[in-house]
């Protein structure tokens, strides 16, 4: 059928003879180099973060000792006191409040969606939950300040709740994280093999007993991973705490009082007029370094756990 004739595209090929040798293709090499470069941008970003945070905070730690930074209970840059504990404390309080909302609710949503809901209900509910995660966080900050705080004041007494308080920021943050937790938990629950479920039913367990005593324990590692990732998200969350938790470091465990978190402090200080190469400026990078290390560790632990349980069941 095909008559061997002079190949117009590759005149060097003998007619009728197919060459399977690899021809160098300069354009493709250029394209490939460009692709590698783009993939390497992510490494450059990581390097950039490490170098920027490293150099600025090493300049900071030349003047403030690491011990003073990590154990000081007062953060007052104007008088040279750089103890991160008040900021860290506020971060922990808001994050815990967030997890207290997000974990039980997220688990409830996940169990409902994975075990009880019909296909149609699931298909309608999941996109709605995703909308919650898609709303900009500054809108949640607005919500916390204008709705949740007045509500708390009404419930807990006008005087005991301050205008800015870590509780309202934390509660709203919990709502923000809820979709993340519920979708990760749901993935974990539905990846539990069917055989486990059927074995439980065969033993006479009710649907609830199967869910809570068989499926949830079997998916525990996935749930733990979701919890850790949610915690990391809560620690790094900024706008809600910047708007609703308060301005000014305050070393208190009372969630009804105003306190500034690490992220809130960075935003407030860098939003104002700040001169480069001042201690104020460098201290922000030291805080950012702590933030980076904490969230990175949590994320890596979470990923490690997810990977591990995947290997067990697949």
């Amino acid at each position, binding site marked *: 059928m095909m008559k061997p004739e002079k190949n117009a595209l590759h005149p060097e090929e003998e007619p009728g003879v197919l060459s399977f040798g690899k021809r160098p293709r300069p354009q*493709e090499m250029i394209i490939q180099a*460009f*692709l*590698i470069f*783009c*993939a390497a*941008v*992510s*490494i450059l*970003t990581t390097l*950039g*973060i490490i170098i*920027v945070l490293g150099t*600025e905070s090493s300049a900071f730690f030349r003047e403030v000792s690491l011990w003073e930074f990590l154990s000081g209970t007062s953060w007052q840059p104007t008088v040279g006191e750089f103890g991160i504990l008040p900021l860290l404390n506020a971060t922990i309080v808001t994050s815990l409040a967030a997890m207290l909302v997000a974990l039980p*609710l997220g*688990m*409830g*949503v996940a*169990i*409902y*969606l994975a075990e*009880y*809901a019909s296909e149609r209900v699931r298909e309608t*509910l999941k996109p*709605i939950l995703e*909308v*919650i995660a*898609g*709303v*900009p*966080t*500054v*809108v949640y*900050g607005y919500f916390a300040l*204008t*709705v949740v705080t007045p509500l708390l004041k009404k419930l807990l007494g006008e005087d005991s709740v301050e205008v800015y308080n870590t509780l309202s920021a934390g509660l709203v943050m919990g*709502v923000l994280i*809820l*979709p993340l937790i*519920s979708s990760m938990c749901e993935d974990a629950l539905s990846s539990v093999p069917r055989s486990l479920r059927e074995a439980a039913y065969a033993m*006479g367990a*009710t*649907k*609830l*007993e199967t869910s*809570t005593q068989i499926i949830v324990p079997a998916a525990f590692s996935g749930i733990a991973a979701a919890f850790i990732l949610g915690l*990391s998200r809560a620690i*790094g*969350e*900024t*706008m809600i705490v*910047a708007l609703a938790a308060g301005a000014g470091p305050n070393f208190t465990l009372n969630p009804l009082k105003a306190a500034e978190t690490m*992220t809130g402090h*960075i935003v407030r200080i*860098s*939003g104002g007029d700040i001169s480069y190469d001042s201690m104020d400026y460098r201290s922000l990078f030291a805080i*950012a370094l702590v*933030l980076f290390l904490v969230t*990175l560790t949590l*994320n890596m632990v979470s990923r490690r756990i997810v990977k591990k349980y995947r290997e067990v069941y697949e």
Partner: protein
Amino acid sequence: MMGSGESRGGARPDFAVNLASRYARGTRWRTMFMLSTLLAIFFLCALIVTIVDDAFGYVVMVDEVDQDSLVMDGMRLETMEAPALRTVIAENLSPRRYRALEREKPFSERAQSDLHAVVLTEIVKPQVVATYTLFESLFDRNRIIQENLEANPDGTIIFRSWVTMHFLTDSLTAIPLSTGVMTAIKGTLLTIMITVLFSFPTGIAAAIWLEEYATDNRLNRFIQVNIYNLAGVPSIIYGMLGLAIFVRGMEPITSGSAFGVTSAGEMANGRTVLSAGLTLAILILPVIIINAQEAIRAVPGSLRQSSLAVGATKWQTIWHHVLPASSDRILTGAVLAISRAIGETAPLVVVGASTFLTQDPSSVFAKFTTLPIQIYQWTSRPQSEFRHIAAAAIVVLLALMLSLNAFAIITRNKLRKQKRFG
């Protein structure tokens, strides 16, 4: 309720001893699980209702100067002719302010509506003394009128929508009544344009490399893990990175002085639209890469093999077959990332968004503000008017994000129809 009915009938008595209570517990918890789901949806509804509630409602206005004292012969300001308005302005405005406005545009050339606006903003100066939310306005109308009869006898109660055409098309001013968000909308669009220009090609190229070319070696595995880790880095850290690298390190480029562009008026010192756009691009890059990778992975291998089998090169296969087949998914993922970028606030505050801009951003080397930044600014003010314009700005922001998503869904469906392979 799997396995309920049939086992109960034939069960031995000792087997069914607490079956009823077990089922009751099952029902109780089932309700709990359902309630938590409903609660989550309730939060979303509460959020939307609050915003709508705050974006409309009664306001009580009191004029600083009584309108009737300005006009003679029982005329009304709105119906006055231009010459009469000119005399009102000349009589009541301080000479300095008069000259300043005259310099902007001579009064003799201004139209009646323009003069009327000048009289209102410069002389009458209506002040908001109280604001109400939509629900108060709808259900508590009598109380509001009662309250204001006593407190503000010469005030007028009008129903005001805080989202108006003027709000959309006017530039920022310091006065909540007359401010607009055009400056912020322009800032957002310019910033996002930079973000798209940089992050789309880079992200998709990186995804192609990782999915199509990369062999399973240590370097590529490291790149992959690194991308996952970057996706979890808090956005504020990217702000710090942008501040140190784009604002300070690359100042000649990001401020435009390297290209001979000198921004008119105030110096931006690298705190420009360009810096903001690049920061956001770096921020959403991991998300775009991960989404694009998933899209490319979903293309069936048979498509690649058939293309390679007829003699296409690797790149031809990717360009003509793999990418078109995955374009709809890539687009969806990228748009999700872009809507995240539009809503980002914290990194832009750190990079140095201007808190107040007197002129709209004209180029990528201009100072910038964006919608979320304005929402942040207005929300943190204590006065209630600012709370209402914050709500109005949120409405604009959500509408912008919604229309972007709608656009993406329509384009995706179009692409899907053209596609040869599902």
